[in-house]
């Protein structure tokens, strides 16, 4: 068969529409979320090509000029180009949020699996600890963590990761408890499979759907926590380009009417968080409709 890009594109659109008919509104939420997230990731990757100025350039234009032809999103008090800072800022927030979500999902999934599978005292202690952390305001814990660890991308990643571990743990543990009672798990045990094999080959594959959904949503939440921490002035050294930090800086110029300094970074944080949340919601509805009702 001859390769033809146009017919491939047609196939893609056709299958998208078929899926849309099959799953309804949830599918379009998933597609919209994917487009937002994909677009912003692409923007972050291509930042040097897309940005009209260097984000640190303190002579990009006049000071505090409103959005216009030369600077589509205006300039800040240090004469830097807001659009370029938005484009480069995507790298920081995406990097921190995705790294934090990876750390969280690893720790949360492993502890959740082990705790739910082994039961007994270990399960009791782990569950109680995780529930206590879960009930505590995550942001306040993250603030304390970030403050104690000192500024830096690594410490902010850890702070964001720690507060989300209990959420993962609870979901994975709950799923493990249900799957553990399934007939095929009992059969595997009956034929003498060691716990390691039961856990790895029979239980874990059934938890993956959950972790994928929670991973996507946790990136959305991690974005909000990252932005909150940097907005509060905890976390990053001043030479890092970051939306939350730009927001905190722009806040000083709000009473004098420089609206563009706060409007654009904040809108980008919302849009990115919205993209991941929609992606997660769509995936949840399609992979496991009952997951989010718990």
């Amino acid at each position, binding site marked *: 068969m001859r390769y033809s890009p146009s017919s491939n594109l047609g196939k893609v659109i056709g299958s998208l529409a078929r899926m849309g008919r099959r799953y309804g509104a949830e599918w379009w939420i998933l597609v919209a979320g994917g487009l937002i997230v994909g677009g912003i990731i692409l923007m972050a990757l291509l930042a040097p090509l897309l940005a009209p100025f260097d984000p640190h350039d303190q002579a990009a234009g006049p000071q505090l000029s409103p959005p216009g032809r030369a600077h589509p999103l205006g300039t800040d008090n240090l004469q830097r180009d807001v659009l370029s800072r938005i484009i480069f800022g995507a790298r920081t927030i995406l990097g921190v949020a995705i790294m934090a979500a990876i750390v969280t999902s690893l720790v949360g999934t492993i502890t959740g699996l082990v705790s739910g599978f082994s039961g007994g005292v270990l399960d009791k202690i782990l569950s109680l600890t995780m529930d206590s952390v879960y*009930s505590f305001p995550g942001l306040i814990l993250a603030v304390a963590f970030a403050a104690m660890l000192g500024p830096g991308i690594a410490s902010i990643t850890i702070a964001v990761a720690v507060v989300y571990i209990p959420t993962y743990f609870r979901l994975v543990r709950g799923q493990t408890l249900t799957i553990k009672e399934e007939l095929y798990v009992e059969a595997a045990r009956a034929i003498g499979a060691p716990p390691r094999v039961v856990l790895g080959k029979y239980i874990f594959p059934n938890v993956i759907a959950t972790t994928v959904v929670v991973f996507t949503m946790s990136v959305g939440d991690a974005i909000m926590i990252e932005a909150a921490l940097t907005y509060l002035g905890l976390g990053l050294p001043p030479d890092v380009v970051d939306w939350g930090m730009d927001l905190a800086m722009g806040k000083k110029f709000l009473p004098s009417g420089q609206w563009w300094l706060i409007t654009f970074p904040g809108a980008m944080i*919302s849009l990115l968080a919205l993209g991941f949340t929609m992606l997660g919601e769509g995936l949840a509805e399609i992979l496991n409709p009952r997951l989010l009702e718990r």
Partner: protein
Amino acid sequence: MKNLLRYILTRTLLTIPMLFILLTIVFVVIRVMPGDPVSAMLGGHAPDKVIEAKKVELGLNKPLLAQYGSYLLQVARLDLGGSMIFKQRVWEAIEDKLPATIELAFFGMLVTILVGVTLGAYAADHRRTGRDYAIRIYGIVIYCIPVFWLGLMFQMIFGVWLDLLPIAGRTGPRVFASTFEMTGFYILDTLLIWDLEALKDILVHLILPSLTLGLMLSGIFVRLTRANMLDVLRSDYILAAEARGLRHGKVVYKHGLMNAFVPILTMMGLQVSLLMAGAMLTETTFSWPGMGRLLLERIYLRDYPTIQGVIVVFALMVAFISLIVDVIYALVDPRVRY
């Protein structure tokens, strides 16, 4: 009645291990993690002798386990220690910030319930219509808007452009808190001395912060109320009420919402932590003199005993509120007692 008492007692006892774990985590974060509070406080280049003396004074030279023990004893006696920076007990610093945060959180929750529950119930009643989808989209979008940015936008629109509402603080320049401060809850205080001019000023200052905080949480409540209402509206007693010819609005909002409210109440207990986190961010945006701002100020000053004290008070508050919510739940719904 006896069952209820037993439930309340068990539930109260269950709070103890939770508090214990939280206190331990606070201790680990603040004392065990790298970073030396004393040299950080003294600026890093103080002579060793001064650093050692300060450590002895604060009890930081003892082994960690001993420090942990005395820390737990201190908290058990509700003594939060003294500040490292100011000549002040930690409790004194917290005392006049706590009412500000509670006042903000209370009115924030009020906005959340009014907006979130009403919209959620309305969406469930008009399931799969344009209005339903619009409300659900509102729920997702408002959840994704960072609360501090929402606050900044409100400040810009209502404070700077329209010049309608104040954007910072709890009172205006002409109203002096010291003339009425008794409990620290300004609304209560102004009512006690019946100063309506001051009360009006305080309410005007509350509008934007509580709207910001309340709308942030309303997204979750829209979703929860809608899901619960959908279940309730499918049940037989709703059908029975409709069959008896009751007005549709009455069926939905009286028979339906009242029953959907019980699970919503439990979720409220779980959202307390989000409320507190949101309050901290709202306080920063609106220069609201509450616990969150106190925590951040002391973090910049590296005043460790106060940081620890504020977090301990947050932990106590969360534990206390979730206890209260569970007790109310048991009172409302006899099925949960054991």
